[in-house]
């Protein structure tokens, strides 16, 4: 009798454990299925882009071939023509200049703004912080018309320096917001210790806050980089000559003539344009994720 009384709960416990394991297996299977579906869904366009970029014009135009594979052999013709016979390199150079300037301006402005808003509590600082975030919620598709007046007034219409002026309206609010959160996660005693050690506010920022918040700063930089590299609406509205154009709009406008789509070159251009962000993401992904998720600065 005692053995029966003992084994009954034991069996039940065994059953509970195996059902727990089965449960976990189902959860895993389900998540794998969805992950694979999403991976395929998101990887098809880049795959299509790569495949098409290495095809000849003839193969792209030939309707009978399978579009998913390269049948007539890999060719670099698209890249050669793109780089030699179009303004692609000018677009690329303009984009690099604009992006570097925008990232630099954004970081200076938003780090300083975040430090003062998040750390040097003053009257109205929290309202201001919220206000800055609200400006981020206004989409650029609404803003470009009033901005047109401003860009024109300062004489930067049809100049990529105009982009250096307007892109920060997209990047600064969000980056400031990231940095405020990051700075606020740094324990208050750290600035007090620095204050006692004799640091001025500027030294506190450069010697303590920026190094400690580096993951957050890198996350903000990647964001600013992505936004200004991929911006489309503003260059579309404010730039119209090829020597001032940037990659996004330039590639599309110069390679689509009326209803003639130079698919091969478009894809080659897209591939080259996507390369720098890809490389940067690959190297800084860990920082980016750490920066966006938490201000982990413990000890």
């Amino acid at each position, binding site marked *: 009798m005692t053995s029966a009384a003992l084994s009954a709960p034991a069996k039940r416990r065994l059953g509970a454990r195996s059902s727990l394991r089965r449960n976990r297996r189902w959860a895993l299977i389900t998540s794998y299925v969805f992950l694979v579906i999403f991976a395929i869904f998101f990887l098809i366009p880049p795959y299509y882009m790569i495949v098409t970029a290495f095809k000849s014009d003839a193969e792209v135009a030939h309707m009978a071939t399978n579009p998913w594979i390269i049948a007539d052999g890999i060719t670099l013709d698209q890249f050669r023509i793109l780089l030699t016979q179009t303004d692609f390199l000018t677009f690329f150079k303009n984009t690099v200049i604009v992006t570097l300037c925008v990232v630099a301006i954004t970081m200076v402005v938003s780090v300083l703004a975040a430090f003062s808003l998040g750390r040097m509590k003053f009257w109205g600082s929290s309202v201001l912080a919220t206000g800055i975030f609200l400006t981020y919620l206004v989409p650029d598709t609404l803003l470009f018309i009033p901005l047109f007046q401003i860009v024109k007034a300062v004489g930067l219409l049809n100049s990529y320096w105009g982009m250096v002026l307007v892109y920060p309206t997209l990047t600064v609010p969000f980056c400031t917001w990231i940095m405020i959160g990051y700075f606020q996660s740094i*324990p208050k*005693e*750290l600035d*007090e*210790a*620095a*204050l*006692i*050690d*004799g*640091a001025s506010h500027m*030294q506190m920022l450069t*010697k*303590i806050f920026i*190094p*400690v918040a*580096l993951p957050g700063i890198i996350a903000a930089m990647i964001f600013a980089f992505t936004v200004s590299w991929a911006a489309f609406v503003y260059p579309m509205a404010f730039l119209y000559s090829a020597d001032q154009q940037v990659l996004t709009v330039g590639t599309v406008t110069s390679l689509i003539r009326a209803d003639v789509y130079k698919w091969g070159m478009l894809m080659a251009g897209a591939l080259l344009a996507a390369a720098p962000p890809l490389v940067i993401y690959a190297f800084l992904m860990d920082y980016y994720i750490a920066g966006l998720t938490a201000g982990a*600065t*413990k*000890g």
Partner: protein
Amino acid sequence: MAEVALRNVVKRFDEVEAVRSINLDIPDNEFVVLVGPSGCGKSTTLRMIAGLEEVTAGDIYIGGEIVNDLPPKDRDIAMVFQNYALYPHMTAFENMSFGLKLRRFPKDEIKRRVDNAARILDIAELLDRKPKALSGGQRQRVAMGRAIVRNPKVFLFDEPLSNLDAKLRVQMRTEIKRVHQMVKTTTVYVTHDQVEAMTLADRVVVMNGGAIEQIASPHDLYHNPKTRFVAGFIGSPAMNFIRCHMEQNGAGLRARISDKISLPVPASLTARYQPHSGKALILGLRPEHLTEPRRSDRDQNCEFDITLDVVEPMGMETMVYFTVDGQEICGRVDPGSAKGPGEVMRLHANMNHMHLIDPQTDAVL
């Protein structure tokens, strides 16, 4: 090399009066501990000395000068925080030398000072490590090192040990005492742990509700508390407060605590308590003065029988709890003599250590 003085210092946060008119004089090289329950204004007081909070009213002097309007860096103080507040991206060496570097000390002087502090604190091998790679106790040492290298006029500590486990806390406590003996500097130390206060302090400042209850040496605080709060706060387990009635007994006095039990006031204290004869008062008696009858200083009149409610063996001694007139009382007896719960035990009250408290004013008479 500096004395610290607080004159009628007040701190108000909007509605809350965190510190209400504090007066405190700390002579050069003294180790003063601010102790009190949570929220009594200890940290606020310390932070006002540091210059991290402005005073609402009153004056703070360091080395004879009013420092009310000086920023922290010009007050020549160093502070150790509860959460260490080490700079996470710097090594222990860089953490300790940061303040000196900002003050443009020459490189070799910095190195000499850091090495010296590291030797005192026994962290010489850890100087290349970042805080993440240090244990809690080691971090606390580095934080102390950061204070020592500056060679400041005043050390300020805000609960520096409360993030450490119990054993390490005791060890670091001794360490702090040792460091203070080696590096003689005026020190203000905040804690809510009365054992820390008693063991470290030259003088203890007991605070309650934003005001100072008593300033005294640990010995004085224990034997001559001035208020009921101090009497109850210092000592563990806390002092028993027993309602009693002072009765005249010929030339002597007796404190009656129940129908059956009345304890004689020692002849040496009779004169002091004579004016309170006939009043309802509170008898304060520490658990360590309620023991089994022992051969020395035994007085038959001070013995009484009680029924034990709870018995807590602690190893070296045993706590016994019993009720008199609805009030729980704690005694501290030899483990060999302790009886079990529900049993009757004979206890002896050492009335030489009695305190009398006026229930109206909470003052110790």
